[in-house]
C-alpha cells in the first residue's frame, strides 16, 4: 500500500495519463454498444421450452411483423375508411423492409365465398366501393366469415388491422419512422395504432435513450448539488464528480468491449454506477482534508491513501461480490448486469484510489479549513438514537421479528414474472395499442401449439383435423383466450363454401382426398407463402395459434397447464404437441427468475456470512452481520407482495445490489462497535460513539446512494421505476437495521468477539485503517 502511495505522489502525471488512456479505450468500447433486438438469447439454449420455441420458429418461420390498425368509432364500413384501408395496404408494399406479397388486409386476403353462381375467391376489398350496396356487400362478407370477423375486423365493425411480414434484415429505425409517417398521413378522423416487432423494439430503444438522456443529467446534477453542499469548494465538487464520470465511462466501455448488448435491465447500469460511485470519492477526499490539517500536501496524500484505501477496497470487494452473486441467474440480461456491475465497482475502487490522490498532488492546495467544534443537532439526534437502541432493545427486537413475520405474509403474495407490455407505464401509446387489440381483435400476444403428425400429409387426415377442431373448442373456453386459428379452420371454411355457404357444412370433410383437393382449389390463385405459418411444407406439422386477451401471467400459466393436460389425454398417439410463441418465452423466464432469485439470496447471504466471519474472526460476528440484511430483504419482498409489484428481471437484481452495499454498513458499524467495546467502554457509550462516527457515515452513504437510485423512479420503464423505489427502500431499511438492530442485539447477546481485547499491533493497525472510513463523511 505504501509503495503505491509513494508512486502516486511521485508520478501523479503518469497516473493521470494512464487513467486518461484507459478512459479513451473505454470510451471507444462504449461506442460499440448496441441495443438488444430480441429476447432470443435470454434463456439457456438447452431449456426445453426454448428448444421447442426455436423448433416452431424453424418449422413455421420466424418473420417479424408490423401491425397497422385503423379505428373509426363510427364504423369502418364507409367509402373513406375502406379507401384508406386499401391505400395503406398498397403504401405498405412500397416500404423498405416489408415483403410486398405478404401484406394481409381486407384488400389482400383471399376470401372464399360460395354462391349459387359458383365459388368466388378474391379479397373482400377488391376495389374501393362506390355505392351503399357495394359497401353493404363487403360488410356482409366480413361478418359471415369467421376467419375475418373478430380477427381482421372487430365484431363491432369499427376496428381493423393490416399485418405485414418483414424481410429478414430490415432497418428498424428507418422502417419504424416510415410507419409513423404513414400513420400521420392517414390519421383522422380514423385513429391509427401501430404495433409489431420494429415498433416495439423502437419504443424500447427510445425508452432507453430517453432514460439515458433524461435521467443521467438529472442524477449527475443531484450528485453535484450533494457534493457542493458537502464540500463547498470547486475541488471538493470536481474530484468526486470526475470519479463518477469516469466510473460510468469505464462501465459502459467494459460492456461494449465484452460485446454485451443494451437492454432494459442493463440500461440501468450507468445510473447505478453514478449511485454507487458517488460515495467513494467523498471518503478519500474527506480523509485527505482531515490529514491536511496536520501535515503538508504530499504527506497528507500519502498518509490518507495508506489509511483509507484498504477500507475502500474492502467496501468495493464486498459490493462487487454482492453483484457477482447475480451470476447464478440463468437469464442472460441479469447475468450480464451482474458481471458489468461487479467489474464496474472494482473500476470505481481503482479510479477513486488513483485519480483523487494524483489530482490532489497536481492541484494547488487550498487553505486549511478548521473543523467546526461542538455537538451539532445531527449528532444529538444520533446520540438519542443510540440510547433508544439500547434502552428499547426489547421493543426493537420484537418489532423486527413482527415486521419480518408480516413480511412473510406479503412474501407469500409476491407475484412472479412479467410480460413485455408491462415494461411500459400505463397510458404509454404502445400499451393503449395493446389494449385496443385485446379489446377488439382477441389479443395482441399469443401462444402457439404445434401439432406434429409424425409423417408427411398427416395433417390432411380428417381424424387429426377433427381433433384439432375439438382442441380449439376446448382452448377457446379457457380464461383469457381471445380466439384460436389453425389450418383446420380453413378446411372447414372451404367445405362450407363448396356447399353454397350452408352453416352445417362448416365441418371437416370425411375424405382425406377431398382435403387435398380443397387445398389445390385454394392454391389455384394462392401464393407459395399461403398457410406457411399454419402448416409446414410436407403437411406433417400444423400450428394452432391461441390469441390471448390478457397479459396476466398467472392466467397464461393455468392455460398452459390445462392445454398440456388436454392434449395428453385426447391427442394420444395421433400427434405430439409442442409449444411456442412469445408468451411461452415469458413463462420459461419465470422459472429461471424464481430459482435464480432463491439461489441468489441464499448465496448472497452465505457470502456475506463468510466475509464477515473472516473479518471478525468470529462465527457469531458473521451471524450478527447478516441479521439486518436478511430482515431488510424480507421487508422488501413483503412490500412487493403487499403493493403487487412483481418479481421479474428488474426487481430480481435488488437483493444483490442491496446486500452488496448493506454489508459495508454491517462491517463498519460492528467494527467500530468492537473497537469501542475493547477500549473498555460500556454498551451505551460504545453505541453512542459508534453512532456519531460510523453511524453518521452510514447515513451519509445512504443519502448519497438514494440520491442516485431515486432517479430511477423517473424511468420510462416500470421495472426500473420499481427498482428505484425498492432499492431506496432497501437502503433505508438496511441502514435502520444496522443502526438500531445491531446495538440492540449486541447488548442482548454480548458476544465474545466484542469483548476481544486487541493486543497485536498489526491487528490494531488493521482495525484502525478500516475504521478510518467510518469518519463522518461530511464535514459541515
Amino acid at each position: 500500500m505504501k509503495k503505491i502511495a509513494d508512486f502516486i505522489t511521485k508520478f501523479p502525471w503518469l497516473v493521470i495519463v494512464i487513467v486518461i488512456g484507459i478512459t479513451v479505450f473505454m470510451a471507444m468500447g462504449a461506442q460499440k454498444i448496441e441495443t438488444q433486438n430480441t429476447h432470443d438469447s435470454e434463456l439457456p439454449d438447452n431449456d426445453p421450452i426454448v428448444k421447442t420455441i426455436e423448433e416452431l420458429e424453424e418449422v413455421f418461420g420466424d418473420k417479424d411483423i408490423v401491425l397497422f390498425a385503423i379505428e373509426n368509432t363510427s364504423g369502418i364500413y364507409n367509402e373513406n375508411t375502406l379507401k384508406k384501408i386499401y391505400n395503406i395496404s398498397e403504401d405498405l408494399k412500397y416500404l423498405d423492409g416489408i415483403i410486398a406479397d405478404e401484406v394481409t388486409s381486407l384488400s389482400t386476403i383471399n376470401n372464399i365465398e360460395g354462391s349459387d353462381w359458383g365459388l368466388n375467391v378474391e379479397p373482400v376489398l377488391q376495389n374501393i366501393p362506390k355505392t351503399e350496396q357495394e359497401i353493404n356487400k363487403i360488410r356482409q362478407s366480413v361478418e359471415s366469415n369467421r376467419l375475418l370477423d373478430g380477427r381482421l375486423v372487430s365484431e363491432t365493425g369499427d376496428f381493423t388491422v393490416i399485418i405485414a411480414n418483414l424481410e429478414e434484415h430490415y432497418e428498424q429505425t428507418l422502417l419504424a419512422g416510415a410507419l409513423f409517417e404513414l400513420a400521420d398521413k392517414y390519421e383522422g378522423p380514423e385513429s391509427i395504432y401501430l404495433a409489431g416487432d420494429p415498433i416495439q423494439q423502437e419504443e424500447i430503444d427510445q425508452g432507453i435513450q430517453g432514460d439515458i438522456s433524461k435521467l443521467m443529467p438529472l442524477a449527475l446534477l443531484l450528485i453535484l448539488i450533494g457534493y457542493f453542499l458537502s464540500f463547498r469548494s470547486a475541488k471538493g465538487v470536481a474530484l468526486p464528480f470526475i470519479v463518477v464520470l469516469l466510473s460510468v465511462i469505464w462501465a459502459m466501455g467494459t460492456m461494449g468491449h465484452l460485446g454485451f448488448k443494451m437492454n432494459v435491465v442493463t440500461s440501468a447500469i450507468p445510473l447505478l454506477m453514478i449511485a454507487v460511485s458517488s460515495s467513494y470519492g467523498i471518503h478519500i477526499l474527506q480523509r485527505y482534508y482531515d490529514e491536511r490539517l496536520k501535515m503538508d500536501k504530499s504527506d497528507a496524500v500519502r498518509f490518507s491513501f495508506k489509511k483509507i484505501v484498504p477500507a475502500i477496497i474492502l467496501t468495493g470487494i464486498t459490493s462487487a461480490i454482492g453483484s457477482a452473486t447475480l451470476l447464478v441467474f440463468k437469464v442472460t440480461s441479469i447475468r450480464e448486469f451482474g458481471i458489468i456491475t461487479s467489474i464496474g465497482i472494482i473500476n470505481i475502487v481503482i479510479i477513486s484510489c488513483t485519480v483523487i490522490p494524483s489530482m490532489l498532488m497536481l492541484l494547488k492546495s487550498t487553505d486549511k479549513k478548521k473543523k467546526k467544534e461542538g455537538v451539532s443537532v445531527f449528532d444529538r439526534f444520533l446520540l438519542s438514537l443510540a440510547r433508544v437502541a439500547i434502552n428499547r432493545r426489547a421493543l426493537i427486537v420484537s418489532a423486527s421479528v413482527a415486521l419480518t413475520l408480516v413480511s412473510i405474509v406479503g412474501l407469500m403474495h409476491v407475484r412472479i414474472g412479467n410480460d413485455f407490455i408491462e415494461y411500459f407505464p400505463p397510458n404509454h401509446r404502445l400499451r393503449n395499442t395493446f389494449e385496443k387489440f385485446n379489446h377488439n381483435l382477441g389479443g395482441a400476444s399469443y401462444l402457439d401449439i404445434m401439432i406434429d403428425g409424425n409423417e408427411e400429409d398427416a395433417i390432411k387426415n380428417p381424424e387429426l383435423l377433427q381433433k384439432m377442431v375439438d382442441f380449439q373448442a376446448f382452448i377457446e373456453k379457457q380464461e383469457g383466450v381471445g380466439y384460436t386459428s389453425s389450418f383446420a379452420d380453413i378446411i372447414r371454411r372451404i367445405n362450407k363454401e363448396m356447399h353454397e355457404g350452408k352453416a352445417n357444412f362448416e365441418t371437416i370433410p370425411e375424405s382425406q382426398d377431398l382435403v387435398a383437393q380443397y387445398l389445390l382449389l385454394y392454391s389455384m390463385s394462392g401464393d407459395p407463402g399461403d398457410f406457411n405459418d399454419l402448416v409446414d411444407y410436407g403437411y406433417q406439422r400444423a400450428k394452432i395459434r391461441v390469441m390471448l386477451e390478457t397479459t396476466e401471467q398467472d392466467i397464461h400459466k393455468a392455460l398452459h397447464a390445462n392445454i398440456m393436460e388436454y392434449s395428453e389425454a385426447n391427442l394420444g398417439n395421433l400427434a405430439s404437441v409442442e409449444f411456442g410463441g412469445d408468451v411461452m418465452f415469458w413463462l420459461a423466464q419465470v422459472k429461471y427468475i424464481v430459482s435464480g432469485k432463491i439461489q441468489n439470496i441464499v448465496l448472497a447471504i452465505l457470502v456475506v456470512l463468510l466475509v464477515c466471519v473472516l473479518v471478525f474472526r468470529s462465527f457469531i460476528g458473521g451471524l450478527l452481520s447478516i441479521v439486518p440484511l436478511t430482515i431488510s430483504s424480507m421487508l422488501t419482498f413483503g412490500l412487493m407482495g403487499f403493493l403487487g409489484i412483481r418479481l421479474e428481471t428488474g426487481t430480481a437484481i435488488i437483493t444483490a445490489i442491496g446486500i452488496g452495499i448493506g454489508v459495508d454498513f454491517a462491517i463498519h458499524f460492528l467494527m467500530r462497535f468492537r473497537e469501542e467495546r475493547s477500549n473498555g467502554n460500556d454498551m451505551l457509550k460504545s453505541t453512542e460513539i459508534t453512532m456519531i462516527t460510523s453511524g453518521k457515515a452510514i447515513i451519509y452513504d445512504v443519502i448519497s446512494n438514494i440520491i442516485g437510485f431515486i432517479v430511477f423512479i423517473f424511468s420510462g420503464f416500470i421495472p426500473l421505476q420499481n427498482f428505484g423505489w425498492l432499492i431506496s427502500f432497501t437502503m433505508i431499511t438496511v441502514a435502520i437495521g444496522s443502526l438500531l438492530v445491531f446495538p440492540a442485539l449486541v447488548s442482548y447477546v454480548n458476544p465474545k468477539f466484542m469483548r476481544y481485547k486487541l493486543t497485536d499491533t498489526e491487528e490494531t493497525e488493521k482495525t484502525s485503517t478500516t475504521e478510518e472510513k467510518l469518519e463522518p463523511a461530511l464535514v459541515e
Partner: protein
Amino acid sequence: MKTIFKISLVVISLTTCVHVNLKAQTGLELMQKNNSQISSNDEQVDLTMELVNSKNMKRTRSIKLYSITDNNNNESTLIQFLAPADVKGTGFLEIENSDREDDQWLYLPALNRSRRISANNETDNFMGSDFTYEDIGNENLDNFNYKKTGEETINGVNCFVVEATPKNEDIQKQSGYQKRELFICKETYILTKVKYYNKKGELFKVLHASDIKTIGSTGKFRAHTIVMENLKTQHKTNLLFSNYSIDSGMNKEFFSKRYLEGGI
C-alpha cells in the same frame, strides 16, 4: 388462361432462323417476332411442377395440359391432375371470352362435382407457384413500352435485351411489375431469361428457360425446363415439360364440363 408452355419461348421455324434479319430491330419489333411465333392451333404437354421452399423442401405435382385457340384468338385450357394421388382426377377448365370475363370451372373428384370459380387477377399466383397469371399469359404488346437496351450472352446463347415498362398508370396498377428485362435469343427469338422488378424497383424474381428443343416435325421450339426463383422469399418453382404435341388437331369438344369431369 393462356397456355403455360408459351411463357418463355418463341416458336420459330428453322427456315426463318436461317434467314435472320440482321437489320437493327426495335424492342417492339423483337417482341412482335417473339409473339408471332407463339401462336399454334392447339398444344398438349405433360408438366411436372416442383415447388421448392427456402429450406429445400419440395411439393411436386404432375399435370396434363391441353389448349386450343379459336379463330378469334381466344384460348381454352384444360388441366388434369395426375399426381400426387390425393388430387388425381382433379380438373380445371378455362374458356377465354372476348366479350366478358373468362369462365373457369374446377372439378373435385372427391366431391364428384364441378364448381364455377371466379376469374383471377393478373398478380395472383398460379397454383401456389412463383408464377403469376401475368407471367404465364400471352403478352398484350399494346400495353407496354419495349426498349432494346443491349445485348448479352446467356449460357452461350446470344440475346437481345429488351426492357418492358407499363404504358400507363392503369396498366401499371394491374401489373405486378414496374419493369421487366427480357432476354430474347437472337437466333430463335425465344426468351431465355427474364428479370422482374417489383413496384419498389427492386429485382425480385428471375426466370431461366433452358433445354430448348424442336417439337416433332412442326419445327417449333419449346423450352423444356423453366425455373422461376423469387429472390426475396428464396422460393423456387421448377417446370419440367415432356411429351409435347403441337397442332395435332384437337377437338373443341374436349374443352367442356363433360371432359373436365370425365377426362380426355
